């Protein structure tokens, strides 16, 4: 657990440093994530120790986020003027995106599984 946290914090720190040096307009934790992904793909020793801490943080992501999320209700006066735009954007935007992405996958994956003999397509 501690090893894992150490790795995660170290890579977040490396992300900070890299952004500082390069001036990239990216979130530091995202850069840290890419660096960690590279380290894992290159088989850097000891990196699999990250699994326990990573799993715990990801499993409880709701806990980490809802103290920020409740602000949408507790500070509603700041958002109520845009209630319609918010509701339409979040609800309909999500529904339309889900339908379009599903259709796109249907077309692309059908073609690809035909190409590879359909070995990994699973029906029923």
């Amino acid at each position, binding site marked *: 657990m501690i090893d894992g946290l150490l790795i995660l914090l170290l890579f977040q720190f490396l992300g900070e440093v890299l952004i500082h040096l390069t001036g990239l307009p990216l*979130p530091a*934790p995202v850069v840290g994530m890419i660096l960690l992904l590279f380290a894992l793909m290159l088989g850097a020793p000891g990196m699999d120790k990250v699994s326990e801490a990573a799993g715990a943080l990801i499993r409880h992501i709701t806990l980490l986020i809802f103290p920020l999320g*409740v602000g949408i*209700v*507790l500070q509603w006066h700041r958002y109520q003027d*845009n209630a319609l*735009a918010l509701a339409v954007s*979040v609800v309909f935007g999500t529904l339309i*995106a889900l339908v379009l992405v599903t259709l796109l996958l249907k077309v692309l994956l059908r073609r690809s599984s035909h190409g590879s003999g359909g070995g990994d397509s699973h029906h029923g």
Partner: protein
Amino acid sequence: MAELMHTPLLGELLHTPLFGLLLTLASYRFAQWAYAKSNSLALFHPFIVAAIPVIIVLPLVGVPYEEYREQTALISFLLGPATVALAWPLYRQLHTVRSVWRPLLITVVIGAALASGLAVGLAWWLGAPETVVGSLAPKSITTPIAIEVARVTNGDVSLAAGAVAITGIVGALAAGPVFRLLRVEDDRIRGFALGLVAHAIGTARAFEFSEKAGAFGGLALGLTGLLTALALPWIWPWVSSLMG
């Protein structure tokens, strides 16, 4: 209740991180229990249920939201390491989908642009100001990354967090009917579409279809988050100037 709050000890404790952290953890624990009891119904997602005690208790004891945010800074800080942690499931799932990486990659590029573009376009069309539009831009990506991206797009952190959660819940609720309507029976499609549009909440829904759907959901979640985080900070100044 109000009387009790005015005793000196309790009054002081209310203004320490101990109070905020205790309230947060207890609310979360309760929400987990309620979610399990409801058989993981999307409407009972821990995000929604955990918010309720906090929304009720804070005004009742007179702790302003800003102060609660400071009290729980320790929890919010962990969003950073949690983002870095996403490298782990991404790494493990990269191997399971090698045979179809090309169509999946095309879908991520088009789908991430669609999910973000639809949210931004609709909100802008309905006259929302840039803070609101900027908070909605990362709504389809997993929360820790979305928060970081919202900071870059001049968004509001609370609004972004709320929009992400509601997006996930809408996606998870709509998945069943949408897949039935479009006659989708391929678990790769169900999982990937859910993870792309509805991040972690969608991925949890995908696991209910099958293990395979869940793995594709996790991959989509990671790739969409990564791509959006990499692309939006570059594209945003241009979008922002278009909005005038």
